[in-house]
């Protein structure tokens, strides 16, 4: 439903403010929806037409129950497309709608300009609808149960993709050149012009080490895959013994998964940026005196902090403000870092005025990991009372450990790296020469959840159709989990 006149007037007004501030966004199309619709849309990830799957129903179940009982409410939804679609909840108050619109222009600007979004499919609305048609046709042909079960399997592996892949230049495999006999003979030897120099230029040991090196390389070439494969879905599409429609399903799941990656990579930044702008636009331009209370109430709700959690809205907006302030005052660089007078640092102000410029730059190039890595400061951790917590096995509860800057930052980065998921990759597609699959978990201090690892292997086995294995560590001990015909096996290595 299109906007009623009073809201479209407001939209035009807010849009103009956003443009004046220098935001550069995809045009935003607003739709008015009721609570049921917004819950449905949210369950579908913002896309009205998607392939049939129970998990959307599950999310809907939770959202609508939460809404019915007054536990949660979605104010707004916006999707990364060009033009950008945003859904406004009908029951929102007038001030809420204003705030939400300002917020949405922030998101849209972020979608358009943040580097990590640059490779996403901006016509995803159409693509998703096409996927829906494809999947429905498959279901008509092969049966809903069968197709859905295969989707279930694929979803288990949905997160095993390579977030860096879209940014790598597509490298072509170097063509295998046929080597002439002559070349083979010369292998490992340097070119010799004069015969008497032969022994000196190519001493025996040197030749041997060279030969070994070449042999190793050849050995490596025989490996399959040649280098560890992070994009498990891609690997399965290429090498798993699957039917045509299954290939299609894998490809659909993979595309959708890649589409959503940047949103997960920039949760803090994206929400922070949008909040920064709704706050700026509202408080500096759009708010009328009578609306202050309503705005403050809603804004405070969004920024609320729950114990044991980091509110991405709060951290994001404050970090952007902090950066702006630091670059306005010149609180960065060697001179500032080397200063160890706290009072002097506190009062530091070089009247640089580069804050706005800086945050626009940050929103273009960073993702959450680099955002936190580069711009989190000890002062910030202190001011916003960040702490680390850990599970205490003795008391069976989570307890605050400390408020040390380094530890907080490290812990935060660990939580954000690879979007908080374990690093898993395929290292051998012909394990033990029995065409079994071997994955490896790059252990970085935290064990895998064993039960779920096993269940995931089971799904993988159903696609690979041969036993699958994963190397990992459990409590410091190297282990190999195997799933063979649905049966789990564990052995120490």
């Amino acid at each position, binding site marked *: 439903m299109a906007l009623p006149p009073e809201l479209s007037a407001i939209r035009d007004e807010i849009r103009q403010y956003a443009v004046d501030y220098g935001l550069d966004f995809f045009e935003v199309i607003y739709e008015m929806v009721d609570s049921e*619709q917004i819950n449905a849309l949210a369950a579908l990830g913002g896309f009205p037409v998607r392939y049939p799957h129970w998990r959307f129903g599950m999310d809907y179940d939770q959202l609508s129950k939460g809404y019915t009982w007054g536990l949660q409410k979605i104010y707004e939804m916006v999707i990364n497309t060009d033009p950008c679609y945003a859904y406004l909840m009908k029951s929102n108050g007038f001030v809420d709608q204003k705030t939400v619109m300002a917020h949405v222009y922030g998101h849209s600007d972020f979608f358009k300009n943040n580097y990590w979004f640059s490779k996403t499919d901006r016509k995803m609305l159409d693509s998703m609808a096409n996927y829906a048609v494809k999947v429905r046709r498959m279901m008509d042909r092969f049966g809903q149960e069968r197709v859905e*079960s295969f989707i279930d399997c694929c979803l288990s592996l949905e997160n095993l993709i390579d977030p860096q892949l879209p940014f790598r230049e597509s490298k072509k495999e170097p063509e295998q050149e046929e080597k002439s006999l002559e070349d083979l003979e010369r292998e490992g030897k340097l070119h010799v012009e004069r015969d008497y120099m032969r022994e000196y230029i190519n001493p025996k040991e040197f030749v041997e080490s060279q030969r070994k090196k070449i042999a190793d390389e050849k050995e490596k070439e025989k490996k399959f895959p040649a280098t560890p494969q992070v994009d498990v879905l891609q690997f399965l599409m290429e090498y798993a013994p699957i039917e045509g429609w299954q290939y299609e399903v894998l490809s659909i799941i993979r595309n959708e998964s890649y589409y959503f990656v940047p949103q997960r990579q920039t949760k803090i930044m994206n929400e922070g940026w949008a909040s920064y702008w709704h706050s700026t636009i509202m408080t500096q331009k759009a708010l009328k005196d009578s609306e202050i209370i309503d705005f403050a109430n809603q804004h405070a709700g969004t920024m609320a902090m729950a114990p044991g959690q980091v509110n991405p809205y709060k951290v994001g907006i404050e970090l952007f403000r902090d950066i702006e302030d630091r670059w306005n005052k010149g609180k960065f660089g060697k001179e500032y870092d080397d200063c160890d007078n706290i009072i002097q640092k506190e009062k530091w102000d070089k009247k640089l005025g580069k804050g706005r410029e800086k945050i626009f730059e940050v929103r273009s190039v960073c993702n959450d990991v680099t955002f936190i890595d580069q711009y989190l400061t000890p002062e910030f951790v202190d001011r916003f009372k960040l702490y680390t917590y850990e599970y205490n096995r003795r008391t069976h509860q989570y307890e605050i450990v400390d408020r040390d800057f380094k530890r907080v930052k490290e812990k935060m980065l660990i*939580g954000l790296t690879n979007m908080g998921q374990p690093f898993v990759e395929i290292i051998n597609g012909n394990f033990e020469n029995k065409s079994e699959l071997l994955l490896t978990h790059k252990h970085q201090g935290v064990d895998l959840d064993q039960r779920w690892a096993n269940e995931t292997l089971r799904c993988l086995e159903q696609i690979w159709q041969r036993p699958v294995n994963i190397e990992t560590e459990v409590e410091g001990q190297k282990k190999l989990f195997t799933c063979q015909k649905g049966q789990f096996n564990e052995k120490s290595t």
Partner: protein
Amino acid sequence: MVYSIKRDHARFRSIVKGKIKQDLKKYITHGEMFAKKGKETVSIPLPQIEIPRFRFGQKGQGGVGMGDGNPGDAVGKGEQQPGREGEAGNQEGQHELEVEIQLKELAEILGEELELPKIEPRGSKNLTSKVDRYTGISNYGPDSLRSFKRTFKEALKRQLASGTYDPENPIIVPIRKDMRYRSWKSDVRQENSAVIIYMMDVSGSMGDEQKEIVRTEAFWIDTWLRSQYKGIETRYIIHDATAREVDENVFFKTRESGGTLISSAYRLCQKIIETDYPLSDWNIYPFHFSDGDNWSGEDTRHCMELLQNFLLPHSNIFCYGQVESRYGSGQFYKDLIESFTNEHEKVILSKIENKDGILQSIKDFLGKGK
């Protein structure tokens, strides 16, 4: 906008209920949400199906939080949303639990768990029920039904037409002619109805445990039949050597002593049916629970006659549940088998040995879908 979400939702519900895709059953978690309802905290069941993924063990990670507290302080996470990857799991808090479940849903669960068939109602829909619904608007009516919106709309129309409306000073005064009232229509609906007549032996041999069993079973049968029929009626008869009709409360609480003449109950049952429940309009379900110890063979013969001549032809099914008792001989069960054999289509017999036998017994009774 048309959403496919309803279909996805229905599918999810069926998986949770275990109707389809049994292989997902092991991934179902029975979470709950907590909400305030008045002063009480209620729990809303929130089943979820977790898609298996490689993830970190729950306890290992820890994380970063915001707020006050000293090292060593517990991080309260009671009201947290169900965790996603990377977040720590839920800590249990102190909650007053009140499981919210509707009787209708309960019946559904029962039906699914026991695979009870839907009951096919018998007889024509002779019973009428009248429902009043507010559907229209009329020009006259009582003040209590005045529709303010419509009234003011009429007044506005009139003022616009007569040119007395001033947009600068939009005061609208309805006059008598503008008054509009909500009006209703009576909907007459034809319905099937059913009556359950519970008969219980309260002779000296029926102890508390036996009555507990009967009560539990009666409750579930009641719940199921209520989910199948609108406007169900229940009647309760207790008997020892004589029978009398009682209310629900007495039915479950009485303990009397004395001999047992089952025929007395059957005769009373017949009388109730004859006076209140004409066969053509009613689906009739007599249930009789006893420990199977009748006073004499003579009386038993009399019972069989009553069943044969009146009760069976008039009932959808006749159910006899025999509760195991230390004192009872259980003879009546055997007598019934002798007279009607196991195959008689309207007689369903069930032995309830103990509390665990209740479920099977309900299935015996209702599994035929009559």
